[in-house]
């Protein structure tokens, strides 16, 4: 197994700040991205990404290549941090947690429509069970291979495909009107 991060992790673990910076540049966007998909909250997602990298700095000196790809490990850490935050949200039962507040500023109608649609899609994703959401975040948005995504989630490829199917089915039902508009129905709208 070839790990494209192996040299950088080894150097970062030995205190090479340039290697550590290269790891940030390479992975930060993905870490924030997966956390945003999971938490539907930009600020919380950035906190998660920061925590992931703090763990990277802590663990890099002890990293043993060959067991799992470093990126896989980072995704696992990010997802576990997200699961923790989601659990705390449920315990607090804060109804507003993770809910994107619609921007009330006046917008051009096209932009307003685009934002409304995006908010609806974000809401539907947020309503999925966590594991389905994670599977879709990894495969659909991060464009990971089925094998890599299954490894991150610690499940078989068959189980991953089951999560993806159920997730997409729920999204299809929740977003049928948006799909209809996008695929041509909008032309008939007033």
């Amino acid at each position, binding site marked *: 197994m070839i790990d494209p991060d192996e040299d950088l992790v080894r150097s970062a673990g030995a205190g090479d700040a340039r290697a550590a910076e290269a790891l940030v540049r390479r992975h930060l966007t993905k870490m924030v991205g997966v956390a945003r998909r999971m938490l539907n909250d930009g600020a919380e997602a*950035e906190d998660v990404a920061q925590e992931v990298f703090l763990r990277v*700095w802590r663990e890099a000196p002890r990293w043993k290549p060959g067991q799992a790809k470093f990126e896989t490990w980072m995704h696992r850490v990010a997802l576990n941090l997200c699961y923790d935050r989601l659990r705390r949200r449920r315990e607090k039962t804060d109804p507003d947690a993770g809910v994107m507040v619609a921007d009330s500023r006046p917008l051009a109608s096209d932009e307003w429509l685009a934002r409304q*649609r995006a908010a609806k899609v974000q809401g539907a994703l947020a309503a999925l069970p966590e594991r389905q959401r994670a599977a879709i975040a990894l495969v659909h948005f991060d464009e990971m291979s089925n094998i890599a995504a299954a490894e991150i989630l610690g499940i078989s490829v068959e189980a991953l*495909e089951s999560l*993806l*199917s159920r997730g997409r089915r729920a999204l299809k039902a929740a977003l049928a009107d*948006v*799909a209809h508009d996008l695929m041509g129905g909008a032309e008939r709208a007033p």
Partner: protein
Amino acid sequence: MTRKEETMDRERFVALLDAYGADFRRWPAEARAAAAAFAAQNADVEALLAEARGLDAVLGLVRDQGAPSGELTARILSRIPRTQRPAFDRRALFALAACAVFGVVLGYGGGLLAPTPTEDDVYFSMAFEAPSAFEDEG
């Protein structure tokens, strides 16, 4: 290592379409070619593909989330530990060794090539060694 190509039938095609959507690039690598061939030979799956494309397009609305804030990047970079001993760059080590060897060779070669001091040289070195005590007094 070559991948074993997956054989495709309708049931498998529909199962993979349900899971991965209409873009075959997201499908398992070993199933892509068979899926494309199956779709080309079975026009009746076009309606299923179109439906999956619709959902893919909807999800595409939230694909672009923008780059992480510069403030976050700076915050993370500021936490890079700098207390550990820096990794020694092998190239720097090689350059240092090369300089040392070059210095030794240059010093030795320079010694061989340099003319032996004459009496005049010794005189001049004595002459400019230090300001004369008489100059101080003057």
